[in-house]
């Protein structure tokens, strides 16, 4: 039986309980036996990206310990956290020490959710039904650091009843940027408002993305604009029947 470990990410943990339940259900319905290491916390990216490399080590170690008890792949609902693990963990520990090798091993078996479905399980249709006009925001790290250009759209393509609407500047950042959103609130606001205006202009009633942080930003922006457009994680859409 296929096994996988869930990494729910700290933002998922705090804000997206129902998305995580949907993620569990989708994977279990596909026959994946899931494990959830309760010692997991955060990937450490907020510290790493703000220049605190030395303070990231302990957080990364906690992650490596939590997930090395099993050799099953690790799946997370965030391209950004997965990129942190895949692209930066090894550089935190010098070559030659065991943590470095462990980081490389863990990196090689950590996957973003849509990547895991499409490229590992080779599943492009999860039997979802969602009769709505849907647009897609390509989040930055998912798109550029992970290079995931087609996976989300491939999955959306096989959702029954879904009408895809393209978004102007689909690949432009929404203004989240981790700590950026509170460090430069006014710049973040303008970027978010540009994104929200493009979403409103495209005529979709739903916008999906593959990133909890960006989702919090865009969903909040739509709510503030008084819009009825639903912002959701792609997992929630794929769980619709």
């Amino acid at each position: 039986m296929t096994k996988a470990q869930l990494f729910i990410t700290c933002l998922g943990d705090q804000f997206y309980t129902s998305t995580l339940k949907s993620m569990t259900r989708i994977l279990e319905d596909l026959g994946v036996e899931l494990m959830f290491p309760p010692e997991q916390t955060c990937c450490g990216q907020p510290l790493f990206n703000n220049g605190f490399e030395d303070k990231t080590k302990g957080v990364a170690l906690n992650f490596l310990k939590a997930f090395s008890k099993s050799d099953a792949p690790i799946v997370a609902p965030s391209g950004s956290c997965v990129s942190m693990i895949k692209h930066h963990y090894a550089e935190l520990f010098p070559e030659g020490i065991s943590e470095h090798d462990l980081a490389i091993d863990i990196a090689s078996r950590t996957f973003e959710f849509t990547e895991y479905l499409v490229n590992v399980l080779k599943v492009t249709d999860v039997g979802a039904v969602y009769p709505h006009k849907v647009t897609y925001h390509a989040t930055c790290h998912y798109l550029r650091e992970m290079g995931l250009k087609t996976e989300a759209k491939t999955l959306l393509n096989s959702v029954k009843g879904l009408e895809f609407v393209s978004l102007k500047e689909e690949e432009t950042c929404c203004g989240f940027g981790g700590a950026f959103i509170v460090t430069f609130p006014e710049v973040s606001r303008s970027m978010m408002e540009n994104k929200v205006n493009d979403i409103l202009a495209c005529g979709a009633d739903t916008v999906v993305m593959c990133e909890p942080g960006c989702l919090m930003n865009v969903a909040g922006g739509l709510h503030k604009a008084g819009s009825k457009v639903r912002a959701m994680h792609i997992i929630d859409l794929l769980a619709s029947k």
Partner: protein
Amino acid sequence: MNETSPYIGFEEYSEHVPTSIPLAVQQATGRFVSGRAARVAELPQWEELRQIGSDIRQHTIENMDGYLTHLEAAVLSAGGHVHWAESGEDARQIVLQIAKENKVKSVVKSKSMATEEIHLNRALEAAGIESLETDLGEYIIQLAGTGPSHIIVPAVHLTKEEIAVLFSKHLGIDAPNDPIELARIARETLREKFLSAEMGISGGNFLIAETGTLVMVTNEGNGRMCTTMPDIHVAVVGIDKVIPDWDSLTVFLKLLARSATGQKLSTYTQFITGPRHAEGEGGPKEFHLVLLDNGRSKILKDPVGRDVLKCIRCGACANVCPVYKNVGGFAYGSFISGPIGAILSPQMLGTQAARELPFASTLCGACADVCPVKIPIPTILRHLRRRVSQGDEFSKPTLSTSIRVTASLASFALAQNWLYRFGTRVLPTFMSIFKRGNWISNAPYPLSRWTKARPLPSFTASFRNWWKKEKDSTK
């Protein structure tokens, strides 16, 4: 230089960006972005070309000394003069000295980032020498009394209406809102000056070490006049502009105009090898090359940060940068703005004055995707954030102690998972005080900085419990 550079308050500036700036900037950069995309689509070998360009620049900055020595010899043998300027002040003094020796009263200038970097106009004016910018954009910002807000379109932040007002005020005329008319007015005003100026000052896009040739890539023709009409031509160029040979130049000419303006080639590409050699030939009597270091050698010592010196100043990174497009160039507080400014200024001015700049990015990576010489801008931003936050062999940390303490606490809580899990249990209860429906609109500091622009979803944090119950009951 480092200690005295004034603090660059990006965040403070971003709190009150004039609304006209993002509009003007987005309009202009939008044109460049689509132009670039069209040119790139025509060249199937574009990615290969970028790689070659990147490799040549990498090789050059790693062997800078050798190429500069070569360049100097070649310029001298072509009859030019070479001056080495370690600092901006040195460069200004060198130019003033040349002007003094030749009794120069007026100077015409073509667009140059290096002279913006060293604030040459101010120094010339202080010495009683009239200095006139002849590139239309530079002429406009000279009238406005500001620096450039974009690498290749210095006045990108101004609308045609604002430019007309400037012209009317400074030229004592009633200038119309029509760009063509405004250009004509500028051209007429400038023409006289070209004829009377004793000295022309330019920058340079490339310096070919092989033959000592200065390459200038322009669109307005004023550069040609500045460098040929006056008797003396002084070029102030950063040492990073050196390239090995003419073969490499062909690569950069293909990359530069396409990346910058979406042109295949810019209107004028000028090659200047020394002064005129005989009476009757075109060109100035004297050619001076001022090679500007101004911190570049120091940057070269940092194996990560030095990649910034590969830059060919095309501006493409700014054109695609969502941060730049929403704040404009002045937020970056220096002659160079956008992503390239965010990685250059902290290295040039120090991470005390420019400590906010490496953070003024969402690390979205759009810049690195378009950079024609593949500078890993997000990697350098992270590298400089590290310098600011924890310090490195080049600088002490410059972040406030309170933020560093907060980071230590966060690090501790995230590494000790029992503490994190405890937090996850109490946070939703604590935050529920601020909840209205599913949203929190007025969170306490520091999350208030989040909720001032958009609400925060409420903390649910019940997956762990659900999992426990679900899995325990199915066992």
